[in-house]
């Protein structure tokens, strides 16, 4: 097993960009309220990037007040984009990330290298859960020459498995018809895997690499329902 605590990954996330054109607290609040009311669900706790790209250079917005307004509408400002040089200090004080303008060669960030880097906070958003892989369900007969493999889970065949066909699973195999072909359960080494079949007439059954051929099977529950499991190193054919 790998014991690393984390992995850094690049990821593209689509995000709302609030593009500022001009500043006037009253109309900003009003227009934002209108927008949010159109789709309150959509804006609820939505991360948002505030872009200053389209703003006339002589404007000097009050970032703190603006962010407050956004937050009252349940938006979550994440970052400021394309901050002009004269506003960089004010922008840093907000504690938000500062992103260079899109498609511009010279970014204001590069001009002040000695300035302290904006703090990057990485939050673990997605919790890893152990989810079971769904079983693979086959409804039609598995014919001679066909092979079906249920990777990482169980295989359920609602019909028969013909002679010359092969069914494999990392987990259990259930066959609700006649098994005439080969069935291999626990192919990645799971010794707890089982094979269940309605009528046993198999060429070969195997669990975690331990197999029996039809000659040996004929002495045990041949043409009857069967539950095959591993007992130590040997396969055991039991009544179903």
């Amino acid at each position, binding site marked *: 097993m790998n014991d690393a605590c984390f992995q850094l990954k690049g990821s593209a996330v689509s995000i709302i960009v609030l593009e500022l054109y001009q500043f006037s607290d009253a109309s900003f609040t009003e227009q934002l309220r209108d927008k949010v009311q159109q789709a309150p669900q959509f804006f609820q706790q939505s991360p948002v990037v505030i872009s200053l790209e389209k703003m006339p250079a002589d404007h000097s917005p009050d970032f703190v007040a603006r962010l407050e307004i956004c937050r009252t509408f349940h938006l979550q400002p994440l970052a400021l984009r394309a901050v002009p040089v004269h506003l960089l200090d004010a922008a840093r004080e907000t504690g938000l990330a500062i992103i260079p303008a899109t498609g511009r060669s010279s970014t204001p960030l590069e001009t002040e290298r000695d300035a302290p880097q904006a703090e990057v906070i990485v939050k673990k958003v997605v919790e890893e859960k152990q989810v079971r892989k769904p079983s693979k369900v086959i409804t039609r007969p598995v014919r001679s*020459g066909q092979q079906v493999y249920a990777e990482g889970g169980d295989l359920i065949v609602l019909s028969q498995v013909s*002679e010359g066909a092969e069914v494999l699973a990392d987990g259990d195999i259930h066959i609700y*018809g006649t098994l*005439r072909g080969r069935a291999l359960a626990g192919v990645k080494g799971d010794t707890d895997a089982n094979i269940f079949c309605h009528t046993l007439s198999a060429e070969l059954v195997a669990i975690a690499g331990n197999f029996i051929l039809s000659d040996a099977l004929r002495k045990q529950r041949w043409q009857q329902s069967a539950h095959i499991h591993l007992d130590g190193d040997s396969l055991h054919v039991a009544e179903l």
Partner: protein
Amino acid sequence: MAKIIVVTSGKGGVGKTTTSAAIGTGLALSGFKTVVIDFDVGLRNLDLIMGCERRVVYDFVNVIKQEATLNQALIKDKRTDNLFILPASQTRDKDALTQEGVGIVLDELAETFDYIICDSPAGIEKGAQMALYFADVAIVTTNPEVSSVRDSDRILGILQSKSRRAEKADEPVQEHLLLTRYNPARVDAGEMLSVSDVEDILAIPLLGVIPESEAVLKASNSGTPVILDNASDAGQAYDDAVQRLLGKELEHRFLHAPKKGFFQRFLGGK
């Protein structure tokens, strides 16, 4: 819209061409405009079984290569109205069939015909795959013996995975089992698989059981589809199969060996 029926088996010599000729003739006799196409390029047989070998000028491959029109290549059957044959080429091989070419020819035929019967070559290679690719219905011809049954099972798998209907995830190809060369006496003696054995292994509906009959060989050699031999059991069995294909429900016949009469037993006759 024409229905495309493939007659297939996997194994050779089980009676695909005999069946194609009989079913095609039966459908035409029932009033449907029918064409039978020989897909066995290089091993042309259908024309012999249907008795039109001397009238073959252009063939299926010529039409695919646009060296001849469909009307030039189609042979009208002399005995049965509504019946046409599109023969295979004897001088080419299966590579002459392209999926696109076959598709164009079938589309053109579908405009005027009710049924298109594709007589598949043996095997599971290109020729057989071309014959079954466009099918709506499959008649899987099987002899009551283990190797034929296993090959039929294989071809059913290919129908499920490689036909156009499978690729487009449309409704699957309708599968029918046609058991040919069935000999009830040998089944009773345990030398042959029974109908229920084969049905059990293949798990598809039974279209018909054609008894082993001298009439089949006689019909093949004389170039007359056996279905036209009304007096023979094989001819009647094929006729039943055609009626079932058209939706009629008929009981299966010729499943049991005829009881020997007193004199026959006494004299040891067959």
